[in-house]
């Protein structure tokens, strides 16, 4: 039996009294890989914040049939203050929960896990560096480690491809494909072209949510969904994946 991890039912949310997302319905299953696309200001970030419990709901509800899932969150780059004096190691360690709230230090086991993670990600040499001295790709890698270190059931990534080069982006998508065998993933992006080969389904977010149960989406459908996003292909992959009726 495949119970969903998260169910959103007629959920509306926003800021102050302004509604940003209206009547969103969505189910997230443990093996999902959902690409979340939509225009700037469409409400993608707001949607994932609602799922993470960071947003007050105006109406509707969010439920967790399997209990509140352990989440790994990679926020949008604009939310990270790169001038903050925190080291790579401290940043990644923030992903580990402390078992004792009155003495919230890392256990020896957690410390080993942290070092192993940094080693595996190739960040061990940068562990003591402040995040302000990292390249865009290195910072995204560190943020991904912070999201992953607690073995989440649901990984939520808000535009992890900002400030990184194409090569790192492809590398990242490779990792995500492998990670999806163990966890549900929601990947926010502006660019449906590059993510559509790796995601399984697509959610178009623009004031509300249109769920598309496949990773192939034509411009016509995007229009019906009122979801004006970039469908311009980057590189050779999207041509194969995007079934554009104009071309064939």
């Amino acid at each position, binding site marked *: 039996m495949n119970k969903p991890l998260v169910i959103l039912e007629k959920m509306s949310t926003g*800021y102050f009294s302004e509604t940003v997302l209206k009547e969103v319905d969505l189910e997230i299953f443990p093996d999902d890989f959902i690409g979340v696309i939509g225009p700037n200001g469409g409400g993608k970030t707001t949607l994932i914040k609602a799922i*993470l419990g960071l947003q007050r709901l105006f109406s509707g509800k969010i439920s967790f049939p399997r209990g509140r899932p352990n989440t790994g969150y990679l926020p949008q780059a604009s939310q*990270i203050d790169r001038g*903050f*004096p*925190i080291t790579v190691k401290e940043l990644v360690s923030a992903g580990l929960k402390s078992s004792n709230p009155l003495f919230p230090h890392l256990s020896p086991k957690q410390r080993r896990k942290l070092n192993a993670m940094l080693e595996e990600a190739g960040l061990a040499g940068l562990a003591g560096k402040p995040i302000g001295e990292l390249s865009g790709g290195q910072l995204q890698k560190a943020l991904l480690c*912070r999201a992953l270190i607690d073995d989440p059931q649901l990984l939520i990534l808000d535009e992890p491809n900002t400030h990184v080069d194409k090569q790192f982006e492809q590398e990242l998508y490779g990792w995500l494909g492998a990670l999806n065998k163990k966890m549900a993933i929601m990947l926010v992006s502006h660019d449906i072209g590059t993510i559509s080969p790796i995601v399984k389904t697509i959610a178009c977010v623009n004031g509300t949510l249109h769920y598309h149960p496949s990773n192939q989406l034509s411009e016509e459908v995007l229009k019906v969904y009122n979801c004006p996003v970039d469908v311009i292909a980057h590189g050779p992959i999207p041509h194969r994946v995007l079934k554009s009726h104009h071309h064939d």
Partner: protein
Amino acid sequence: MTDLIQVFEYQFFRHALAAAVLTSVLAAMAGTYIVSRRIVFIGGGITHASFGGIGLAYYLGMNPFAGAAVFGILTALGIEWISQKGKIREDSAIAMLWSFGMALGIIFVFITPGYTPNLMSFLFGSILSVGRVDLQLMLAFSLVVILLFVVFFRPVLSTAFDPEFAKTKGIPVARFRYLMSVVIAISIVLSIRTVGIILVLSMFTIPQITAMLFTRNFARIIPVAALWGITGSVAGLMAAYLLDIPAAAAIIFMLTIQFLIIKGVFITLNNLRRKGARRR
């Protein structure tokens, strides 16, 4: 020179030195948090709003620093509340509390019958009249804050850096933010005693930006800032004694000069290194 040695025989001067050291330690901890979170303006709001408490306490015939502490803590909690609710523009709200506190203080001092208190000592501190009880209070509070930073370092750091992520990991973010607001407010009010309202913020920022020339690691900035705070404020005290100038102003002057000198050394060293690299 003998002058300088003799002065240590005076108890008031030894007290002043101890106050300078303790203020530096307190300001190093709270200040590093303030500077890292880029909330120096909030520190300014708390500092000036507490003057309202000083005035009210005078009017009621109570200890002015108790009044300052109450106003400072309430202002700090209020600002944190506003920023968590996000319903009013935070910077405007701070500016309002800032000037309202000052206005209230002046009104109360003005309508207090009898003698007018020495306003200068609140605006510019009175480090040379710090007593044993003041020192004990500062020492006790410093120890509490050190303990707090040592035990709760991880959640304090992660709620300061990325509160939303911290919340997804089940950390009681609001509780830590309020706790740190109170720590900042009490640290500021205790420091007002030594350096005064006008100058207190520089004790919370100049040693930090000096320390940040050496390290960008939160946990290391604190001791390094405490060290530069101590050297600067002790040098300031000496200068104040030798040149017979106001102590708090001399301390801030020395902290600034110290920063400029170290910054200058860093720039020169960098230039030399770059030139060396080019020659090779």
